[in-house]
């Protein structure tokens, strides 16, 4: 029967024991493993039910993941929304909301005539684009997108505005007419207070701006053609540490300025120790948007989530007690929540839980892919590895390949992939 069950569901069962939970006020011993069950909601109530499982851990199949333990409350990153006005219509595109302990199943698009006003929402399904038609030309509309997991509202985008216009613009490349207005993009969102925000167009740095003391930034880019663009946005914190890049692919329409709103740069993160003695604290710190809630995830067989806040300068710090971690390699990452917006998790930093404390060298900033060691990973580095592509490497270059790429003493597509990931432009 066991074989039969395994056969049918093809489950991978990971077994591990749960630790006791305690604080200065309470101790919860031998917690019972509980799987979150269904959820019922109405306008007046929410009901979370639970089901049991004999073995703790996570069960997965190709079609579902079941997490056991205490009740899980899923969240999702806020979609970043863009609005492109047209004749009596606005085309909306958004990035997928990334569910945490949930799969996004639906999106709703909201429309309003006033900024911050009452939005009227329409369910559009699990898609990333929607066109609002029958709009009045010359009227400014405001839009938002909400993500849902099986009826549960998980996240909401910032609002974006657009003004439909009757001006007929011949798309470039169609051979007729001329462009009457500038083709461009306006980016806006949150980074870190007074931090540098860099915007890359198709991998090339095109705009840099400084966020305000409130962490908000806005930048525009004009002179574009009609076509598909790949934009990346990243922030640099006060210590010169770069955030993970936020990437957005969008079709730019000729003669129209597209608004991309709600970009929420993920926090930077560092740790004070590269190795920490089990039971000692490790300090996890970084920079994010000012006065935001920071969720720190410490990854081990069991994932721990800790909450802290960033101050007016966006600085956050959390002292994590490693007594709950097993000896070995661990990692941590963080995300930020402000108002109704949620960033994605940022970069991951690793540390070892062992038998001694070793301070981390946070001054050494090795940028992967930075072959010419100028602190950036850009076209120069690309040209250097393109030069060595499918050629036998020199002894000097083998050393660099080991330090800055995957260390297999050859240049192939994998090295380019690593470079593309760490690209700074």
């Amino acid at each position, binding site marked *: 029967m066991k074989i039969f069950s*395994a056969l049918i569901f093809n489950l991978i069962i990971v077994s591990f024991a749960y630790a006791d939970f305690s604080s200065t006020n309470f101790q919860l011993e031998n917690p019972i493993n509980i799987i979150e069950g269904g959820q019922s909601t109405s306008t007046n109530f929410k009901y979370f039910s639970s089901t049991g499982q004999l073995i703790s851990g996570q069960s997965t199949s190709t079609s579902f993941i079941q997490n056991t333990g205490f009740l899980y409350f899923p969240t999702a990153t806020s979609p970043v929304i863009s609005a492109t006005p047209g004749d009596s219509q606005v085309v909306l595109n958004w990035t997928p909301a990334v569910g945490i302990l949930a799969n996004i199943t639906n999106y709703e698009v909201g429309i309003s005539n006033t900024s911050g006003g009452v939005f009227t929402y329409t369910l559009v399904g699990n898609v990333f684009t929607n066109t609002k038609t029958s709009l009045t030309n010359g009227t400014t509309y405001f839009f938002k997108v909400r993500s849902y997991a099986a009826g549960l509202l998980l996240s909401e985008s910032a609002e974006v505005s657009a003004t439909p216009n009757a001006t007929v613009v011949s798309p470039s490349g169609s051979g007729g007419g001329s462009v009457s207005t500038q083709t461009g993009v306006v980016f806006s969102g949150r980074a870190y207070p007074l931090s540098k925000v860099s915007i890359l167009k198709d*991998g090339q740095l095109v705009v840099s701006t400084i966020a305000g003391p409130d962490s908000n930034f806005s930048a525009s880019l004009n002179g574009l053609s009609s076509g598909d663009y790949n934009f990346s946005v990243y922030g640099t914190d006060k210590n010169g540490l770069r955030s993970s890049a936020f*990437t957005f692919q969008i079709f730019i329409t000729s003669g129209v300025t597209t608004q991309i709103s709600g970009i929420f740069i993920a926090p930077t993160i560092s740790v004070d120790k590269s190795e920490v003695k089990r039971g000692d604290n490790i300090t996890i710190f970084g920079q994010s948007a000012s006065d935001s809630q920071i969720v720190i995830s410490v990854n081990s067989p069991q994932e721990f989530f800790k909450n802290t806040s960033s101050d007016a300068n966006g600085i956050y710090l959390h002292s994590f007690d490693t007594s709950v971690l097993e000896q070995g390699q661990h990692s941590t990452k963080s995300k930020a929540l402000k108002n109704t917006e949620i960033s994605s998790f940022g970069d991951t930093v690793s540390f070892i839980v062992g038998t001694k404390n070793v301070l981390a060298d946070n001054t050494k900033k090795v940028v992967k892919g930075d072959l010419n060691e100028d602190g950036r990973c850009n076209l120069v580095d690309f040209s250097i590895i393109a030069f060595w592509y499918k050629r036998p490497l020199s002894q000097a270059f083998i050393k660099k390949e080991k330090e800055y790429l995957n260390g297999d003493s050859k240049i192939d597509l994998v090295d380019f992939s690593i470079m593309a*990931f760490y*690209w700074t432009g």
Partner: protein
Amino acid sequence: MKSFIRIFFIALFFLMYFIPSVSWAADIFFNANKNLYTKNENFLVQVYLDTKDKKINAVGGSVSFLSDFIELKEIRDGNSSVNFWIEKPRLVSNNKINFSGMTTSGFSGSKMLLFEIVFQTKKSGNTSLNFEDIQILENDGLGTKIATKDIPFNFSISNELSNENEEDLLIKDSNPPESFNPFVANDSDIFNGKYFIVFSSVDKGVGIDHYEVRESSSWGWGGKYIQSESPYLLKNQKLTSRIYVKAVDKMGNIKIVEINAQNKTALLEQYLIIGIILIICILFYFRKKIWLKLFLK
């Protein structure tokens, strides 16, 4: 009967556990308007990626075809999802196109264009376009290979000759390539540490055809455009030239960007020499007045 069922389920169990279940994380496929063509007909095939729920940042491989049936006429990489080509799609033998490229920070989507190919049919029969050695790598900082399903394109060529209903494959692209930022650099690992220039533009229409580089005087005079590829070894290693890089698309639209001379010290020397010459010229021009003032007072 019972033992038969038991053996059946045990066998099934082992099959499921020891033969890895195939779960494709990305598809690479062709897209064409139809799959029946006439003889001597030109047709366009697009190469697309469906990244499913993955974010990918590097792709490479080959497209193969039977050259008895079709002939390659053109490859277009305009508006590609690939930012930087490592190997621009090109014919490497009479029946194979190689390509590899990367996209910084990755991309995802169900119909992401890589490039387009224009073929002309030659003889009738059933044939296909196939992918070979496809590698698709995840944007995870490790270059993890993604399980990929490559879907061939099967089509037929009839004995009829090409008719008037042939699709219009001409692209009307009047936009120049995108603006770009060339860099002058040197590195001990290439060109023996000599200075070179790197550049890359993209074209949202028909695609980049080639680049040209001109090394002029620091004032921008002189020098000829030379068709070049990035990285380009600079002739003037003193870096006193103003450099112009021209990106030309396949319709002949151009975008020129320039970089000022990098060697400021040498430039100052040049300015100093020019200044001295100017002073000599002025003195020569006013020599009579100066002579009179100095000696005939």
